[in-house]
């Protein structure tokens, strides 16, 4: 076989392999802007999700063995299915010298327009539970930090968070 042919055939194929796909995609894209511009498809869940659509309707508590079990009734006024799989956080209220940990007792999911009672274990380390209830009912700012797994429609998003001067939505 001719050696020159052996060298040139792969080179020719290489040139075709570069030109052909670009030419094909250029002519099928319709215009130069379509050819060079990427397409963004932001998920509707993120666009339409409003954290303030989750509202606290009522909070009360029971005491067992020196621990407090908060019973929080929530309402989802948004369009997305929202819930929590895990929640482990520290809550502090600097103005009232309250410090404690909150742990979600069981995962929950709130459908759009649905109410549900959520049980949260509260381990008070400083301050009194009565003061905390007053603060939560007034919507006074608290500091929260910890780990949570958020459920948003069909997906779960685990993350660490830290929020200063957070006011529970009422």
């Amino acid at each position, binding site marked *: 076989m001719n050696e020159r042919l052996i060298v040139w055939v792969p080179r020719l*194929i290489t040139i075709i392999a570069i030109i052909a*796909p670009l030419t094909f995609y250029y002519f099928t894209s319709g215009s130069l802007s*379509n050819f*060079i511009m*990427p397409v963004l498809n932001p*998920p509707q869940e993120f666009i339409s999700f409003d954290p303030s659509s989750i509202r606290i309707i009522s909070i009360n508590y029971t005491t067992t063995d020196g621990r407090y079990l908060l019973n929080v009734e929530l309402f989802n006024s948004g369009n997305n299915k929202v819930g929590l799989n895990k929640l482990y956080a520290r809550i502090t209220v600097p103005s009232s010298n309250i410090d404690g940990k909150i742990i979600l007792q069981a995962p929950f999911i709130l459908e759009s327009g649905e109410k549900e009672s959520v049980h949260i274990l509260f381990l008070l380390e400083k301050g009194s539970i009565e003061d905390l209830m007053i603060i939560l009912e007034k919507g006074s700012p608290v500091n929260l930090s910890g780990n949570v797994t958020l459920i*948003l429609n069909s*997906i779960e*998003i685990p993350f660490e968070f830290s929020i200063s001067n957070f006011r529970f939505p009422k």
Partner: protein
Amino acid sequence: MEKFRILYLISGIIFLIISIAGGAWWELIGGEVSKPFLYIGFSPFDFKFEILGLEFLKPPPLIIGLFLCERLLAIIGSITIIAGSLLYKKTWSQRLFNLRPFIMPVLFIVLILIGITIIISSAQQYIPIVAEVLPNLNDALMPYSSQYLTINLYPILYIDASLKIKTLSQFTFKFWMALFSGLLCLVASTIRRKEAKK
């Protein structure tokens, strides 16, 4: 068959399989590895940016065309290497050898490092909100570096809050196999040159 041809043959076969298989060489996973809510996968043949399992960014036809070019070049390069190593009785067979399996993974690493350090730094410098919202984006994207992406919510939601999302930035098994194939190819090329000098 000479030793270098065996090395070329193995290298060509591995690189051909990698080129045909496609998929990511570098990936960034946000959230749990088994069920990520953020996934970015990149290779010379492919790009994927998914949020919640749905395509967030579709590359333009120009980039899709370039990926196809790269893949065809890799396939052609592998086939010529395989042919060159098998046709050992032909005097012209050595003209078919090339270093594409080595060049591609090396250029890919350079591209990833340049992309992360220069492009992201420039974006953070010229679009200040990127630096404010994602202060450790560089670290989170850099392979085997930070394991968290910090999102500062104040600049976008005016809430004094930050989120830390578990991330994993890594080169995939396909990349390491491509690099292994490239190193075999480089060794084969060195042996071939040494033998030619004798």
